[in-house]
């Protein structure tokens, strides 16, 4: 009979590690209990077959069909770039391969714990990029860390790393918002902590730096919190994402405003940092391609308290809908300034507004606000309920979207390590070549050829003091025609 074993990780913010002594102790306990444990869950026949095919040594390459998408990001023809022209080359339709020698590296003979790295914003820092305090993302980072910690604890309670009967260990580094520091943190995780995979990232700039390092080092990287579309558009075969990105949220918001509400004069107001700059990219482009270009786009500095300059300019253009991209507290202050002028336009914004901060600051103005949202937390799912309950019990609060996706991302990595063993390239492979979607607490997570989560995204609408989550179908939001054929092989996208 299986005896549950628990290895609660040491609390801490800056650096959370099970110390070597605890690791050894845990290993000893696990080894002693091994006889009493149920056998490790057997691998599915598909996984066993996959393992054989990726066991190529230093020089071989798996002979496995690459995932292929016919349309990048399920973009409708009328919002594709240069829709009237066949491009010479399309990227991201065929899965990136890893062709290096990493699969031949043997598993280490002795390890006391199986380490997984976490890199996220968990402490405020001074940032050159923002000219002051970092991006105010610590609350999101801590939520992620809590959920990942929980996933690791649960895995250890199930017997840790099955092949050796040793516990998993989480190595935590702060995603310092000072540009460039995240690169050094990844190097620390990879070369000093010797982690097998890394999960984390919220800020697009920091995450870009980190994944460039991960590419060179050759280590799997999962993000549950960076929604920057360009994150996976770097063509790095080591990075994946388990949350719907801003491109998908942009498409849904634009379809809602343009195709359903029939708005004609969109205005954009956003934070001036990279999150704001890249967050609205597909809003701006899609509006233009639909023939209703943004009448004005204004930026503000994160944390700003007054928006007169931006709103005075916007007023001149008489918009009939306002898109916003920035942090939740910023969204609330912008919204309050807009409503204080008596403006009634729909206010469409990003998922970060679905937060206590936003509701508190916006007060009654929050009513009617529409946010893009990467999942539906109201979904009825026993797995989700169990996670919520466990999280609340562990931390005294309900998990937010970052926590839920981090929990899924951590479990994806744990599954990959249990399946592939202690080899970074093979851990990457089992995730990359998996054909079935992951069944997470946030729903199904199917990875595209670019290893991006292409699951459904939603709108969160504030109604009667509550967030209500609606799908495209629920709201009857029309969408443009998605042509399932590569552009270089089809007639021009503008073809009817």
């Amino acid at each position, binding site marked *: 009979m299986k005896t549950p074993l628990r290895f609660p990780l040491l609390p801490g913010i800056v650096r959370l590690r099970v110390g070597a002594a605890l690791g050894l102790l845990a290993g000893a306990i696990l080894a002693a209990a091994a006889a009493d444990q149920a056998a490790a869950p057997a691998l599915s026949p598909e996984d066993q077959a996959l393992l054989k095919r990726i066991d190529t040594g*230093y020089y071989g390459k798996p002979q496995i069909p690459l995932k292929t998408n016919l349309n990048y990001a399920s973009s409708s023809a009328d919002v594709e*770039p240069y829709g009237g022209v066949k491009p010479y080359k*399309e990227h991201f339709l065929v899965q990136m391969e890893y062709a290096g020698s990493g699969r031949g590296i043997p598993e280490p003979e002795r390890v006391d714990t199986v380490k997984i790295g976490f890199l996220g914003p968990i402490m405020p820092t001074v940032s050159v990029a923002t000219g002051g305090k970092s991006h105010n993302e610590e609350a999101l980072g801590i939520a992620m860390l809590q959920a990942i910690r929980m996933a690791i604890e649960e895995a250890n309670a199930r017997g840790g790393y099955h092949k050796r009967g040793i516990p998993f260990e989480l190595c935590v580094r702060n995603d310092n918002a000072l540009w460039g520091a995240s*690169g050094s943190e990844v190097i620390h995780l990879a070369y000093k902590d010797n982690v097998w995979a890394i999960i984390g990232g919220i800020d697009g700039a920091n995450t870009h730096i980190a994944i460039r390092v991960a590419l060179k080092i050759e280590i799997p990287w999962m993000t549950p919190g960076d929604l920057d579309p360009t994150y996976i558009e770097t063509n790095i075969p080591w990075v994946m994402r388990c949350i719907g990105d801003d491109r998908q949220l942009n498409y849904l918001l634009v379809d809602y405003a343009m195709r359903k509400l029939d708005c004609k004069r969109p205005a954009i107001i956003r934070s001036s940092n990279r999150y704001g700059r890249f967050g609205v990219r597909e809003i701006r482009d899609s509006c233009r391609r639909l023939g209703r270009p943004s009448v004005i786009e204004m930026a503000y500095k994160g944390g700003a308290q007054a928006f007169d300059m931006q709103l005075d300019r916007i007023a001149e253009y008489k918009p009939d809908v306002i898109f916003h991209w920035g942090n939740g507290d910023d969204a609330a202050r912008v919204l309050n300034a807009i409503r204080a002028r008596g403006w009634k336009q729909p206010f469409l914004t990003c998922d970060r507004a679905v937060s206590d901060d936003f509701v508190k600051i916006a007060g009654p103005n929050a009513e009617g606000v529409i946010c893009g949202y990467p999942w539906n937390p109201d979904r009825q799912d026993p797995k989700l309920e169990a996670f919520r309950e466990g999280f609340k019990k562990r931390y005294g609060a309900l998990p937010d979207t970052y926590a839920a996706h981090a929990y899924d991302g951590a479990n994806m990595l744990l599954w990959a390590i249990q399946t592939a063993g202690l080899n970074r390239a093979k851990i990457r492979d089992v995730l990359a070549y998996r054909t079935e979607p992951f069944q997470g607490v946030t729903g199904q997570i199917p990875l595209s050829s670019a290893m991006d989560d292409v699951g459904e995204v939603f709108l969160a609408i504030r109604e009667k003091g509550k967030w209500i989550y609606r799908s495209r179908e629920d709201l009857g939001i029309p969408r443009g025609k998605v042509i399932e054929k590569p552009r270089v092989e089809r007639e021009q996208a503008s073809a009817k």
Partner: protein
Amino acid sequence: MRTSPLFPGLPLLLMGWAAPLCAADKAAPKLDPGLPYVYTQWEQITTKDGLPNDHIFAVKADKECVWIGTEDGLARYDKKTRKIRSWREKDGLPWRVVTAIEVDARTGDVWLGLFGGGLARFSAGRFDHYTQLNSGLVNDVVYAVAIEGDHVWCATTAGASRYDTKTDKWDIFTEKNAPMEEIWNYNVSARDGKVHLAVWGSGILEFDVKTENWKVYLDPDGEMEIDLYRDDGNVHVITTGASYVEKVLWVSSYFGCARYDGRHWRGYFDHDCGLPSNFNNNLKARSGQEAWFCSDKGLGACMDAATCTWVTYTSDGNKHSGKAVIKRENEVIEVVDTGYSVPHNFQISVDFDGNDVWAGTSKGVGHGIGQGYYPRLRASGAITAQAK
């Protein structure tokens, strides 16, 4: 060290393809305008030969030796004695991961880019260490190093740094004083009064040493998911390398490669020429006509840009075999049995050493011996005669 078992020590190694060439020469003028040189004599250098690590990030030929930067140490390969001396952290190397090497031809100093460890100068057996805490280096994650006059340039993950070795002054280039849309520098090269930075998200930045002015080469279509036209400019905004020779700029990226002669751009993709893959870690140009690309699926050499003639080197490390495919545009002209060539197909760095070529790979260093090397193309009859 192992040499190609098929052609050990042959003076001009065209035997593998001399016979087919003779036949082809008689049959048709299709080989016209000639054929490129093919490296058929190779040796492989790995940990078995004394390298501290097989994961090679940098190779730099330097007179009697070749410097090799690995994931765990620095090595110096003596070309005469074939002996290797290596340095790890215990030997004074400031950090284990050596991603870039440049040699100052005037002083003989060896400059090392350390991945997460800053910059080091190796001179007279001593390592001087520069970091973001003790110098003007903008970031410790150094991807590439270049020497330009008295200056040492570093491409780091958060901008570029320029160190004046005479005045001890540092300059930092970021989005604040250079046209970097993003600051993620990936490569730097310096030659003929220009410094070129390959920047993820900012294409190629060209710095004119005299005027200190910048010029930017972006992807004209501005889109991540497509390249609209092949020859309209840089193929993508995420670039990994730039090499400028004879006023021709060659560019590598993870999305294909490009060449710019000052007037015309030409894009190269794996489906339309001999480029082994669109995923390219690095490149080095030998001339305005010849450049070598480090792809994840082999070493691709554009040997004659005018005719788009390529030679692509791949190997099978398990069988110790290898081949070179000669292509013009996307037509295969000839396949040459080279014996074991590059030790692994995942290429990370390349350098030239007279007629020879050195390739750093995911699993060791390859040394192509270029006896009888000639640039561009030669008429097949002349090649055959020379081979005989």
